[in-house]
């Protein structure tokens, strides 16, 4: 149970209970401001009845023609509020916004090692569309799965036909 509402600048001062978790990256201010300025409708917070931030989602819409799609940039839930179905709820929200924008599909990138997340996305109807080699910098670099789910506009689910070969990060648009 939450209140879903748009992310505001003031939340940047209060999202520590979510962001102190090592799985969640805290970006420079410009990153959040860029998303808030460009895609304010795509950034939502889940708030607990006591007013605490339980998690949030950030996304955007991009691409041309049949590649017009919603993208999940960040999805994160505080360790204290996991296993409550919050991630699914936030994803559903992002899919609805993308539907309204008449996008063809929603996609996201995830570390191939992040089994929990991958399973969750699969349960929500996402498939591994392709592997992006050495997408995440680190020691060593890690591959990413580009996962996708078709929206209603993509009637034949063309966007969900997986690629047979992995791609390099520079081939990803």
């Amino acid at each position, binding site marked *: *149970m939450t209140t879903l509402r748009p992310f505001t600048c003031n939340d940047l001062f209060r999202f520590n209970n979510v962001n102190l978790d090592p799985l969640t990256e805290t970006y420079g201010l410009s990153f959040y401001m860029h998303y808030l300025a460009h895609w304010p409708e795509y950034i939502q917070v889940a708030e607990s009845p006591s007013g605490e931030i339980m998690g949030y989602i950030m996304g955007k819409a991009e691409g041309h023609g049949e590649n017009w799609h919603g993208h999940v940039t960040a999805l994160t839930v505080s360790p204290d509020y996991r296993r409550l179905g919050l991630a699914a709820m936030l994803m559903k929200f992002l899919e609805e916004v993308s539907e309204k924008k008449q996008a063809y599909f929603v996609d996201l990138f995830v570390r191939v090692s992040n089994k929990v997340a991958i399973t969750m996305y699969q349960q929500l109807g996402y498939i591994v569309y392709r592997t992006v080699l050495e997408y995440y910098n680190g020691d060593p670099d890690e591959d990413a799965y580009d996962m996708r789910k078709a929206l209603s506009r993509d009637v034949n689910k063309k966007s969900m036909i997986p690629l047979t070969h992995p791609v390099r990060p520079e081939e990803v648009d």
Partner: protein
Amino acid sequence: MASKTHVDNTVNERRLRPIYDWLDNGNNKKALQEADKVLKKHPSNQCARVLKALALLRLGKESECQIIMDKVRSEIPCEDSTLQAMTICYREIHQPDKISEVYEAAAKADPNNEELLTHLFMSYVRLGDYKKQQQTALTLYKMKPKNPYYFWAVMSTVMQAIHSDQKLAKGIILPLAERMVLKLVREGKMEAEQEVQLYLMILELQDKNEEILNVLSSPLASHLSYVPQQKATILLKLERFPEAANAYRELIKKNNDNWAFYQNYLLAALKFQQPTECLDFLNNIINTSEKGIRAPYLARLDLLKRAYDSEDVQCNLQAVNFMHQYFVQFGEKGCVVGDLRLYLNLLTSKMKFELFEKIEKDVGVTSDEFPTTVRQMQRHIHLEQLRRICGFHHPPLADRNKQEQLIKRLCDLYKKGIELCPMQDRLPTDFCPADPYILLATHLLHQLWVDTSDASFLYKAMSLLEHGLLSSPVNFHIKILLVRIYLEAGLVVAADHTFALLDVKHLQLDSLGHLYAPLLAPLGNLPLASTTLDHTAKFFIANYKDSADHLTFAYKYGSFIKIQEFVELRERLDNSFHFAMTTVDKMLLDLCWCDSTASLISTLNSMHIQPHLDTIRWASLRDNRDLEVVRGWEPLHQNEKDSRMQEETRVCMLRLLAARNAILRILAASAKSSSNFLSQISTELKELDEEIIPKILQKFETDGKRNRPCKILVPLDAVERLREAHYSEQLRTIACLANSLSQSSYPDFDCIQMLQTSLCLQTLPIPERDTPISFKNFLFRAATCSESLAIISAICSVYAVKSKPHASQKKNKKKCNKKIESNMINETNETKVWREVAVLLSERVQNLDAVLTEFEKYELHTDLDENDHVCTTIMNRIIKRGQASLRQSCRSLKSRTQPILRLLSNLKS
């Protein structure tokens, strides 16, 4: 750099590309050379000249940069890449108004250039000149009738309204904005969601709710999202309760777990319905929705809270039942405690006992048993947290004996608990489910430390938490408490080590800085303080530069709903308390390292401190601390009093800032020939210290004891520092010195006596050995002593140097009429007094140095027992880092004695 893409002239681009590349790579020297090379062939190339100026600026040659920029500006450049480069340059040199000037001139020279006007508009956005924004946007719209330009003008009008007084806004400006939009509505030209949103914003600012409802029911609503939700909100605002309740009922049926819908439903429905009718609706939702939906269950409690008096027996009974049921269903979820906490005040203490008895029975772990599954353990933990919230860990329900038993029990529970969920069975990214046991135990240990001043409780907490961190390395709650406990014991290096694990950065430097940064220098670790303060200040300064860009993006993308929010964020960061405190602390720290009057004066000059002008905007200061990040389960107060005392601690920050800012201004005034300012500021500081500060400190006294650690969980940096500044007589002593110097050209008798006795120039006795100790108070005083000596020596030095030529001038004025001899006597007297002061201060410095030398040999004693759940690794770690903390604080304070002594030796002569 944005300019890269905009060079339309290809020749220009080919030539200038290398300069851009060097600038982008941060190699400004190479950029300068490259620019000079281009300018040799094309000395008049404007863009190359500006890039050269930019390189010079980044090399620290501001005045050379300024000369080139002024010259180029006078030529009225119109070419895009030049203007872009100038924009960057003026932004970095903090002259955003020049950007507007440049574009104004260009737009005048080339009046039909859409792009130039767009840039001009954005330059006004950077300045926040709403009126000129509006004019420019309308000019643009006339030239090219595109909707975005028109709505830029509308939004600029709205911003004028927001930033002017209510009467003008509502009477003239907002109606104008509304008419502007209506014109396009009538012409059927509304195109985008943002435009309709802006229209609604204008109506909302005028409280025209009926009109909003009309828009939401009109064809315009097809542009909008969440129309039913917006309608419901407006119906509630219009107090059309039956319709609002109905609207929310529909929303709940579609989305039965959105908490806000339930709250608004109850708000509306209870205005015209019986509580039982609402209850029927909620029960109906419960019966028809899938399991795991929590909102309707919690809403029943919300209904009780809204509808009944807490004295009502019937309500009490029902609340117990609902809460019990809630726990039965959701007891193992992490949210259950926070959810129920909101309603615990509905219960009498008798009812609380009853509730916990029921829950205890369900959980099924008696007081000498242990949970056998993780789920059972989670329920058990949540019960214990609820009990703590209801005062079961505090007197009168738990005396000291009981508390110690509880700690032991919690430690045992933790030990058994981690066996239920060994590390290899868990995701490395998840917390260990047993962790809350040690968090609870730590809170109790902290409480015992506060009550008994026995530091062995602190060391026990350290070992517990360090232990927890080994098996649950991602748990930031453990880290936060550990930082708090280490600082409570005065161990900075250990705290620093733990704080680094939190990886606090960017905006968190502001919201979480209070956990750590403000206590570094007061606990004696000056190098760490210096880097941290620098790092923090850089964040704020860089951000201020960028924040105007974000605003321009919001206009560019038409995100009008975000514009006022962005302006507020900018204000919030710019006026951050933490920023202001960081700046003042950093300046004082830098000044305390100066070892000659020359370096003092040049440092003071570079800081632009104006003794007559207080540059801090006191009324606008913003408290950006995130206090909720610390998990505490503090007992609920009946009157909902804030157990973290946010407001009181904010006032402490305010007073501390005022006091330290006054010290800074006294220093600056002493260096300038302005003794009347000195008198004024010293009076301010005296009043602050004698009247204002004691009032706020009183609120933190427990049982009339003034120097006891505080019970509050969140760090109390400002409270503790203010206490120290006040009770050590630091503020009093500095005020007294400043006052004395404003009266005469050297310290008077009273002032010298004050210096002789002042506590802030003396250390506390070295703590007892072979027993666990918190070094906080000892280190606080040692650091105060060192800082006070540095500041007082600095004030005396700059003042003495300044008053010498001043005295000789006086002599000339008086000419030969007066006896030169008496002046001579005066002057020798003056020299004598200064020497006396210098000798006294040097003595104090040497005392401090001797004490620190002695303290450096101190061996930390933890009293930790290897049998007591503590493994040797952890014990050794605590001792090693603790010892390093003491050494570093000691050495860094000692390293400051040399510069002070050099300063004083000048004063002597």
